[in-house]
């Protein structure tokens, strides 16, 4: 893992001094239901770490624990190293349902997260222009969310996340609400974004194709209570991965083998109530 980390560090150059996230023995309960058990994991700077697992395995919960939206029952989430000095919000979420304010324009939605940091006027405009350009939304700055397609909405959410210059992006099934074609296009966009300027991300998904396409590291969680079953890394640079790529396909099949039983058991568990 250290190798991957340094590799990413080389790619990002001096842009990211690097802030790693370290999970130290995380366990969590909802009432009497144990959702996570003893999770320890390193998330190195400049890498995309995908969390996969059957539904109900606690992967989204884990993401919220990392982002500080929930308090772990046991264990600690640690930031190792300082975030970049210009990072307004080191741990930044991208949500499955986009979470855009419907009463604000594209521009307004990005500006929302800058306003609280006293960034207004020219500085704000410069940042907004930059992130909208990077997400190919420059022409839609004044549009309202209701006028946008699902894919565009998620690009706005990504632009908003980029605006605060995060040390780590916490992406909670960001493509799940989109149709298959849009998903493909957005994956390309994410790859392009990362290639241009590598970022650290924890990417929760139940879609193995996404994990194989975007993840430097893929963490497989077991069914509830979620434990780490396997950590798989893919060395192919993500910009070179293609659909049907044999390496990726092998990893995909491997992941599916790992998950099949868990998924079936989890499914039956739900039926049993």
């Amino acid at each position, binding site marked *: 893992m250290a190798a991957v980390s340094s590799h990413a560090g080389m790619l990002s150059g001096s842009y990211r001094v690097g802030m790693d996230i370290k999970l130290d023995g995380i366990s969590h309960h909802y009432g009497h239901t144990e959702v996570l058990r003893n999770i320890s994991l390193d998330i190195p700077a400049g890498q995309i770490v995908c969390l996969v697992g059957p539904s109900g395995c606690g992967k989204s919960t884990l993401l919220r624990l990392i*982002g500080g*939206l929930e308090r772990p029952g046991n264990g600690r989430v640690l930031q190792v190293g300082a975030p970049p000095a210009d990072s*307004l*919000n080191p*741990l*930044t*979420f991208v*949500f499955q*349902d986009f*979470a855009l*304010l*419907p*009463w*604000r324009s594209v521009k307004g939605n990005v500006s*929302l*997260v800058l*306003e*609280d940091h006293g960034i207004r006027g020219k500085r704000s405009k410069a940042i907004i222009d930059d992130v909208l350009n990077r997400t190919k939304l420059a022409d839609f700055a004044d549009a*309202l*969310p*209701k006028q946008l397609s699902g894919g565009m909405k998620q690009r706005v959410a990504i632009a*908003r996340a980029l605006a*605060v210059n995060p040390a780590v992006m*916490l992406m909670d099934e960001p493509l799940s609400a989109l149709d298959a074609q849009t998903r493909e296009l957005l994956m390309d966009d994410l790859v392009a974004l990362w290639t241009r300027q590598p970022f650290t991300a924890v990417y929760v998904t139940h879609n193995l194709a996404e994990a194989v396409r975007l993840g430097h590291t893929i963490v497989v969680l077991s069914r509830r209570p979620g434990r780490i079953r396997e950590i798989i890394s893919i060395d192919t640079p993500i910009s070179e991965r293609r659909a049907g790529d044999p390496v990726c396909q092998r990893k995909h099949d491997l992941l599916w083998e790992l998950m099949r039983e868990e998924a079936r058991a989890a499914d039956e568990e739900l039926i049993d109530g």
Partner: protein
Amino acid sequence: MADTGAGKKRDGDGPIEVRFRGGGFAPRSLRWVGVAVFVVLIAMVQWGTESGWISALTLPKPTDVLATFRELWESGLLFKHLQPSLTRLVIGAALGASTGIAIGVLIGLFSYARAGLVPLVAAIFPIPKIALLPLFVIWFGIDEGSKYALIAFGTFTPTVVATYGAVDNVDRSLIRMGQSFGLSWSSIVRKIVLPGAMPGILSGLRISLAIAIILLVAAEMLGAEYGIGAYILEAGSLYDLERLFAGVVILSLLGVLVSALIGFLEKRLLGWRI
């Protein structure tokens, strides 16, 4: 097949056109129908009162009501009555609605406020505010104070209920988004909770303001020399049906006006809704 072909003669084994069954349940905007209903009703009353089929004791002649209205306008009495009423309505409703929104937001945001105030609001909601008028007269004086208080109190409770319901209905994921970006509490309230609750608050206001107009008449029962409500009450006690109807028409118009105003606000403020 039997279902889709129902009501149609089945001749042989020939193809049957599928019966359309998707009609109705989709309101269309047919403004002229409403106007026509009014015109027909008024014309019927006019004909009835002129022919004596409707006695003078039952309904006034619409043309006489119109004449009364014109008299009111020409004598300037209309504005003498409208001005105090509108003042009472605006001040009372503004007081009631703004405190209602404030308390409603508090209830929506704070568990202690909710636990403490929801039962209280539920307890005072069904009180007929008119019954409290004599008490208000003692508390706030027989002049404008008691009238403002009555209208304010009457608009307060429905606004509170509508507002905290609206705050409850604000998409929690948006609030979580705000927190995840490190927005301050006040930013979340101002930029996410309040705009998100606005549709609910405005539709609550539609009801509260109609109640305010209803209460205007009650408020002007005690000690009002001028005002649309006082005018209607006086007409009632004099059994002067023309004036009574002229007054009622003014109240109706006021209601339509308020409704249009809120419609305009909704268009302006809630254009973002799908």
